[in-house]
């Protein structure tokens, strides 16, 4: 096994196990911490896929901003242990949902099984900040501006929604 393979398998195992932790942890704060681990593992996988800028954005935005927002909201709500008990499905239904999501995995895996890997020789600067930035500000400048508008709208919307009293 090469070093890349070892790194990939370790990171994939970490990502999948902590993703299972996100879904199964009773307390949302544990879910948030498991999600951080998954996001970091995926960021390293982005680096292996020659998407360095995306990896940095993943850590800055996801682990740095979105997760802090989640943790902040969890702390703000300060849920009592009895408020964390879920009146969820019974065991039979949980088993069925497990089967359903596992078959979703099998179907997706089967479809993806046909993908061909012909790793092309790529330019040395592929996926770094310079090439991605050039792409964003030339071909994708309109979506980029629209993303700015979207973030402004989301910011205003979040403030208006969470404000204690509308006047």
């Amino acid at each position: 096994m090469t070093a890349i393979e070892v790194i990939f398998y370790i990171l994939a195992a970490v990502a999948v196990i902590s993703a299972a932790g996100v879904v199964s942890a009773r307390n949302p704060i544990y879910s948030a911490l498991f999600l951080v681990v998954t996001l970091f593992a995926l960021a390293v996988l982005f680096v292996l896929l020659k998407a360095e800028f995306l990896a940095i954005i993943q850590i800055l935005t996801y682990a740095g901003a979105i997760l802090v927002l989640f943790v902040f909201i969890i702390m703000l709500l300060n849920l009592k242990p009895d408020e964390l008990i879920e009146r969820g499905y019974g065991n039979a239904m949980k088993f069925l949902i497990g089967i359903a999501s596992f078959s979703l995995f099998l179907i997706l895996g089967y479809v993806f099984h046909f993908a061909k890997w012909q790793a092309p020789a790529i330019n040395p600067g592929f996926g770094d900040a310079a090439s991605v930035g050039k792409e964003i500000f030339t071909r994708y400048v309109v979506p980029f501006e629209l993303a700015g508008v979207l973030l402004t709208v989301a910011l205003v919307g979040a403030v208006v929604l969470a404000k204690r009293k509308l006047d």
Partner: protein
Amino acid sequence: MITLNHYLILASALFAIGFAGVVLRRNMITLLMSIELMLNAVNITLAGFSRIHGNLEGQMVAFFVIILAAAEAAVGLAIIVLVFRRRGSVQSTELGELRDVTDAH
């Protein structure tokens, strides 16, 4: 040798786990985190296809998915705070007003 298939199968595993979380969980905060998990699985496939095609389009889409996830998390968490203030709970079962009244609860 790690091929694209390895990444895609990892992504489908993460997507399936996120799907299970969205369907199973009733805590809305965990539900939002499961959605983030599914979006991340998609990002892995986008970056992988971007790598094998040797152009940056997939990475661009993944970039906008991250921006979208940030906006979604902000508004979603604001809604959760609002629901908690009104109902004193973050369980999604609390929000059933639009359910058909003839439907057995």
